[in-house]
């Protein structure tokens, strides 16, 4: 019997009432008194020297309040990078200055050159067209390998386009090479992990405000982590102390990583608000989002897998070029390194692994974390090369994987790439997958497709990810310039209702529902007695925000810790009221009782006593019932699973249709199964989008060819099948109090290789055996061209 409330119940998402009825309060819904509007003049060319920006005519246009250029920001810092990678020679990465508005040079199409503030948005837009740019075009650097080889520099002052050349584990390199030399079989695969535009439904918005009477700055922004923005923008860009700066991220309509980062527009409107003594609002257009929101992925990789004659993995060696774009976005350097290299073991026991990553500057939009961030890139290459190896060696791809799995009794498992998997059961998720995907019935379905002239294929793969980011001391050693704990305050009111103020941030995930379920369950009260507050630095403790599937594993753990402090104090109060020993007090179903007796006092009475302390142990205990806790995880969590995709390929047109998709995930314990399934559905849609539809494309001059929905294909409802998902294989996380692992990114990480494996399988079963790989997105044209050979 499924639970109807608390942990394990599919409680309806309470936030959806306002989201679905048009009553959500997004940043663009906010308008402040005397608000002015900012529009950014953006670069139309990818690379050019700026001789002069003449704003004279623009400044004289109707309604224009002021035009800002780089000179206006000469007294403030550039946008900081939050992670410093050390290269394989022990040197720090190259870190170019990242100005708020372009200084001296244009480095990508879309870069902000000037900010026009006017009475209306239309006036600001008119004025932007009146700015006269005097620029000298330079050759654009777009191809990563060409960029790494030298020639034209994106940043002249740092002397190279190579941000870093990273080796991991560098000490293993010789042993890996040796293992390849003596391997019975080596499978090699060269592939591209396509660049993606994040496309959250809500484009970015920022409103700067300044209160002259109190010298208080406020930034309203579309952020996944308002405290991080406060720290980065306050301390490193504008020099505003944190107690004079409030950052509010109200309802946020999706982020997928792209709203983690600190963007130039946030600093610009905050700065302008003080300069002009007026609130300044900027709202991104969808076209602007394509050329300014940090893109994701964009790796070019060669992976080699060494096996013995029986198919046991001996070693993995990779070389990846990772695009940074024109500047280092906030967490960009960490994505192809620590979020990618550490996952190259996958679900398998490969004793020796060496990962080389060359991060490269190009004249393109900065690239940073996007749903999965590094882990999809690791999973894709590994699960593709395993499939290729199985085909080359004549082995069943499922059996080859099973043979190399870390076995259920081998946890905790120390990988050769630093991380230690605490728990898992990969055989169990594979068994579950084969069942729910009805793999046994595939052949009959294939025959049916063949009669209709279609090639049917089945692709399977596994995935593992590191979530619950992250132990601060560990990431500090790896180059993070921030801690990655989380925080929560649990405030109990006098009549027993509870407000939880979390440092996590919901931009669609459903925190307001799931976090309340956990608290209701711990105390034994109704979920509607618990309110979740997030997104405002003025009323939440310092938190690091939501990304990396970390909210419940890290933020939830902080909340549980704070709630336990509250419960412990409440037990003391109950012991006083019941004239019993604290050790004998038990909390169950919203009441404190004395073990072995029928004496009890309800939750509300204890809360009232805490705030009306007439009968209260004041000499031993402070009044009130409110506690704050911080939680810093001792390890990552390791969600894992197995996915299966069935496709039909039309050999005449190359069109791929996904007939079925099954996902068997191990997320550890699950608080709200409905929300977990929804997260998997969304992730699968994005993964299928990457595999079949999506791809940012630049021409050789650095012009974006896929700058609107006319050319950038997002998955729509009829592009995806009705999913079969299962999360009943549960090996709870061993090191956080809820035993949860995180589910937000799994679908996007695990699905692309399943789709591509399925297409290649379909072609081979159809006798088209010369095709061993097709780069994503597998558009009809690409598949048809591959078939033609």
């Amino acid at each position, binding site marked *: 019997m499924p639970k109807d409330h608390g942990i394990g119940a599919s409680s309806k998402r309470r936030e959806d009432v306002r989201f679905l009825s048009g009553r959500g309060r997004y940043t663009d819904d906010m308008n402040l008194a005397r608000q002015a509007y900012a529009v950014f003049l953006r670069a139309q060319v990818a690379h050019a020297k700026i001789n002069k920006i003449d704003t004279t005519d623009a400044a004289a246009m109707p309604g224009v309040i002021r035009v800002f250029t780089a000179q206006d920001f000469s007294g403030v810092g550039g946008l900081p990078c939050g992670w410093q990678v050390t290269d394989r020679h022990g040197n720090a990465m190259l870190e170019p200055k990242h100005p708020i508005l372009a200084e001296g040079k244009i480095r990508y199409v879309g870069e902000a050159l000037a900010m026009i503030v006017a009475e209306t948005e*239309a006036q600001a*837009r008119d004025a932007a067209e009146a700015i006269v740019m005097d620029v000298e075009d330079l050759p654009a650097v777009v191809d990563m390998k060409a960029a790494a080889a030298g020639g034209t520099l994106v940043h002249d002052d740092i002397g190279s386009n190579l941000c870093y050349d990273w080796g991991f584990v560098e000490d293993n390199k010789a042993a890996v090479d040796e293992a390849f030399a003596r391997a019975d079989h080596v499978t090699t695969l060269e592939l591209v992990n396509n660049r993606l535009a994040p496309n959250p439904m809500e484009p970015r918005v920022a409103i700067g405000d300044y209160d002259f009477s109190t010298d208080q700055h406020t930034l309203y922004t579309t952020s996944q982590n308002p405290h991080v923005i406060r720290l980065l923008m306050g301390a490193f860009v504008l020099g505003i102390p944190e107690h004079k700066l409030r950052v509010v991220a109200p309802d946020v309509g999706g982020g997928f990583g792209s709203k983690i980062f600190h963007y130039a527009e946030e600093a610009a409107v905050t700065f302008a608000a003080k300069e002009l003594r007026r609130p300044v609002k900027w709202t991104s257009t969808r*076209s602007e989002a394509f050329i300014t929101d940090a893109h994701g992925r964009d790796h070019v990789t060669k992976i080699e897998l060494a096996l013995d004659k029986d198919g046991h993995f001996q070693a993995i060696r990779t070389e990846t070029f990772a695009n940074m774009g024109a500047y280092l976005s906030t967490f960009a350097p960490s994505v192809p390194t620590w979020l990618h290299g550490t996952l190259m073991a996958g679900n398998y026991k490969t004793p020796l692994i060496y990962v080389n990553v060359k991060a490269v500057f190009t004249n393109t939009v900065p690239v940073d974390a996007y749903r999965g961030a590094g882990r999809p890139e690791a999973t894709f290459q590994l699960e593709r090369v395993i499939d290729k190896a199985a085909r080359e060696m004549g082995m069943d791809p499922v059996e080859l994987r099973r043979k190399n799995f870390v076995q259920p009794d081998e946890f905790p498992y120390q990988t050769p790439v630093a991380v230690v998997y605490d728990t898992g059961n990969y055989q169990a998720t594979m068994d579950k997958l084969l069942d729910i995907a009805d793999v046994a019935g595939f052949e009959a379905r294939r025959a049916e497709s063949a009669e209709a002239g279609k090639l049917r294929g089945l692709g399977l793969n596994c995935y593992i990810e590191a979530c619950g980011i992250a132990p601060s001391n560990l990431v500090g050693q790896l180059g993070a310039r921030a801690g990655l704990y989380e925080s929560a305050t649990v405030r109990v009111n006098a009549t027993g209702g509870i407000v939880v103020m979390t440092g996590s941030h919901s931009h669609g995930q459903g925190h307001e529902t799931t976090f309340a379920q956990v608290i209701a369950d711990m105390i034994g009260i109704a979920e509607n007695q618990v309110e979740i507050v997030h997104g405002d630095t003025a009323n939440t403790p310092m938190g690091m925000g939501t990304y990396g599937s970390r909210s419940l594993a890290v933020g939830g753990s902080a909340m549980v810790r704070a709630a336990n402090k509250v419960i412990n104090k409440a037990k003391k109060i109950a012991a006083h009221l019941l004239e019993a020993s604290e050790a004998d007090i038990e909390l169950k179903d919203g009441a404190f009782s004395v073990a072995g007796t029928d004496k009890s006092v309800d939750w509300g009475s204890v809360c009232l006593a805490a705030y009306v302390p007439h009968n209260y142990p004041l000499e031993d205990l402070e009044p009130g019932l409110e506690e704050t806790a911080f939680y810093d995880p001792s390890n990552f969590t390791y969600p894992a699973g197995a996915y299966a995709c069935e496709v039909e390929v039309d050999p*005449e*047109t*190359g*069109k791929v249709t996904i007939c079925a998709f099954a996902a068997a995930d191990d997320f550890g314990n699950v608080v709200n199964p409905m929300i977990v399934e929804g997260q998997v559905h969304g992730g699968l849609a994005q993964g299928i989008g990457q595999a*079949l*539809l999506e*791809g940012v*494309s630049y021409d050789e001059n650095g012009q974006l*060819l*896929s700058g609107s*929905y*006319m*050319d*950038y*294909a*997002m998955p729509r409802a009829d592009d995806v099948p009705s999913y079969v998902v299962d999360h009943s294989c549960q090996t709870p996380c061993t090191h956080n109090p809820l035993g949860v692992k995180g589910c937000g990114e799994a679908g996007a990480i695990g699905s692309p290789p399943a789709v591509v494996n399925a297409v290649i399988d379909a072609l081979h079963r159809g006798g088209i055996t010369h095709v061993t790989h097709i780069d994503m997105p597998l*558009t*009809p*044209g690409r598949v*048809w*061209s591959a078939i*033609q050979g």
Partner: protein
Amino acid sequence: MYAFDFVKPSSIDGAAEALQEEEAMALGGGQTLIPSMKQRLAAPSVLVSLGGIAEMRGVCIADDGAVCIGGATPHAVVAAEAAASYPALAALAGGIGDPAVRNRGTIGGSLANNDPSACYPAAALGSGATIVTNTRKIAADDYFEGMFTTALEPGEIITEVRFPVPQAANYQKFLQPASRFALTGVFVAKYADGVRVAVTGASEGGVFRWSEAEAALSADFSPAAVEGLTVSPEGMIGDLHGTPAYRANLVKVLTKRAVAAAG
């Protein structure tokens, strides 16, 4: 969007007069023009809406049996009202864009714009339709002059389009995955005096007739008839979504499928 004036005349003459204004533009359903204006890519001084002209809306059957569609008739109306008289045309109209586009976009707007990937040009050319304007009648074969280019004079208004009804017809559209315009679309129509095959989405010259296939199908209206033909990639569109060779392949594949579906 730049500032502009807006007029909505109730007669064809009134619209023609309003279009004499410098930089005036006719507004059908606005499914191309309005987004272009929002992007500041189009800047008419006056927008002359054709939506208030009652005689330009609706579907009827002429004495000679032709299906006549008013120039300001939305796609959704064509999809519903031509379903019995010209099912292949109705199906084409019902497959354009999404419900919002089909309820705003008009046949006259589509043909006047002549987007190289639009559906209606294939139907008009494939049916040998007559484009009726406020000043003359233009045969489809004389109307389409290349990508976004037509025989229309400045200020000329498409008031009606007349489609002779074929014995059998079908339109096959292969979707461009992002825009869902036709990556390539083929309209095949069989008339007593021969078969017409019109191709949209494929050529840099816009919609065109595939004459080899017309000859082969006029002799033998079966998919096998085009099997031996080849389409040259020369002059085909090459972009993110398909090479010229891919589009040339689609022309043939879709023609076969259209013939099979037309029966």
